[in-house]
């Protein structure tokens, strides 16, 4: 690899011309694109598919705001090159309710996780919320949540700069059918009752 910092020193002849054909099923609808190889799944969703619910936070895989479900698994779409995922089925926050209703369109329906976030006031500014909700849905599908401590550990890839973590855990615990502690509980107390639920 070149040791120079400048693009001029790189052998990039022909690189800018390449376009890759790719097909996705996004929230139940088939989409086709011809895109540059460096397009991330996050940019595809937001700028090509018009689905801006999936957020660009850090763009480096550290905050989780870009979390969506790809082939049923939660991933950071900011670190995913779209070409690699050609042929995948994607569910974003816009399609979650539809996914849970087996494809039935319904304008006013919410996924239970969305409803729980509202009921538990599990956000303040809301920027991280689509990623939090998609991550939580993906996490419960993975099947490794037995306690509230498990929720905290397995949601650690989603940062909330407003600090709504206590209510986020409560919302997820309700959907996971763990006995939700009062929303006023403190994080410290939250940690001690890990195995007892």
């Amino acid at each position, binding site marked *: *690899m*070149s*040791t120079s*910092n400048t*693009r001029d020193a*790189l*052998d*990039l002849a*022909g*690189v*800018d011309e*390449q376009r*890759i054909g790719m097909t996705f099923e996004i929230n139940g609808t088939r989409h086709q694109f011809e895109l*540059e*190889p*460096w397009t*991330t799944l996050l940019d595809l969703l937001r700028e090509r598919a018009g689905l801006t619910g999936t957020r660009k936070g850090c*763009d*480096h*895989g550290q905050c*989780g705001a870009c*979390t969506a479900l790809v082939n049923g*698994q*939660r*991933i*950071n779409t900011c*670190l*995913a*090159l779209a*070409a*690699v995922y050609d042929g995948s089925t994607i569910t974003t926050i816009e399609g979650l309710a539809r996914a849970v209703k087996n494809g039935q369109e319904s304008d006013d329906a919410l996924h239970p996780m969305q409803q729980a976030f509202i009921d538990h006031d599990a956000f303040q500014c809301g920027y991280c919320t689509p990623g939090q909700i998609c*991550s939580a849905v*993906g*996490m419960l599908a*993975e099947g*490794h949540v037995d306690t509230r401590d498990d929720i*905290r*550990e*397995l*949601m*650690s*890839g*989603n940062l909330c700069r407003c600090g709504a973590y206590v209510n986020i855990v409560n919302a997820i615990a309700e959907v996971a059918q763990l006995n939700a502690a009062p929303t006023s509980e403190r994080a410290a107390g939250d940690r001690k009752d890990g195995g007892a639920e």
Partner: protein
Amino acid sequence: MNRFSYARATDVEQAIAHHRGSGAAAFLAGGTNLVDLIKENVARPTLLVDITRLPLKDIQTTPPGGVKIGALVTNSAVAYHEQIAQRYPLLAKAILAGASAQIRNVATVGGNLLQRTRCHYFYDTGTPCNKREPGSGCPALEGVNRIHAILGTSEQCIAVHPSDMCVALAALDAVVHLAGESGTRVLPFANFHRLAGDTPQIDTNLEAGEIITAVELPPAGFADHHAYVKVRDRASYAFALVSVALGLRLEDEKIREVNCALGGVAHKPWRDVEAEAWLRGQALTRDAVRGFADMLVREAHGRRGNAFKIELTTRAVVRAFEMATQRRFTEEA
């Protein structure tokens, strides 16, 4: 993001051929580190060879009774695999101590071995870095070096390997399977990564265009007496300041086998076969355990920001022995 071309391979031979055709090609698997490095202008490949469709996604039992894990098996799939979780819980725990669930769902076994250091200066292209730009210097030596190495360092580079999984693989005496233009070969895990020395830009003993096809675990998984201790600045989703992967075989209150690897302290997962040989055969006592912990750091070199890691390492090692044996080796408070 920097521009690059893209080629998709469907088998190992095709991947190697694609790679050979370009001067600055890189294999792309999970991409959780490489895509980020490209965004940061630290990695500058002109061709990405997408290997995610290669048939390297199986976990199989080997004839001697070990397990062979395909290079493209994701971290999540390894950690939650029934046989891995039961027979090699040290590996499962180390994996689950690393990264986030989203990243573990994508990151692969092979990619984990090849992830680059998280040294601040390596990532900051506005600063010199001997690993990124050989010969440019190392600001970490006298700079912000809280996360840096205390063992096996060089005057060129004090970066640490960031992996948790690799620390467990080092302790388990894993073997790395490789394929390249001149055929296949295997490397013992201890010979896979390199110390920085005078060539800090070279992390591993992979040859140009070589690809990791699998990681193989020997039959001994140390399921009865093992521990993975990870000390970090927050409870989850942070790289290790110090980590310890420990596997023990005990017999009649004696330590028959001890495999101990350290993370967060060196340019590669750190094994000390001399210290392990010293401990082997000794009775499981406080003196033996603490003596072993002290021996591991006998040649440690701390700097302004990271000298605390020396004591932290010994304490983490003692803690690992306590967890692996359900005994106490620390003084009562």
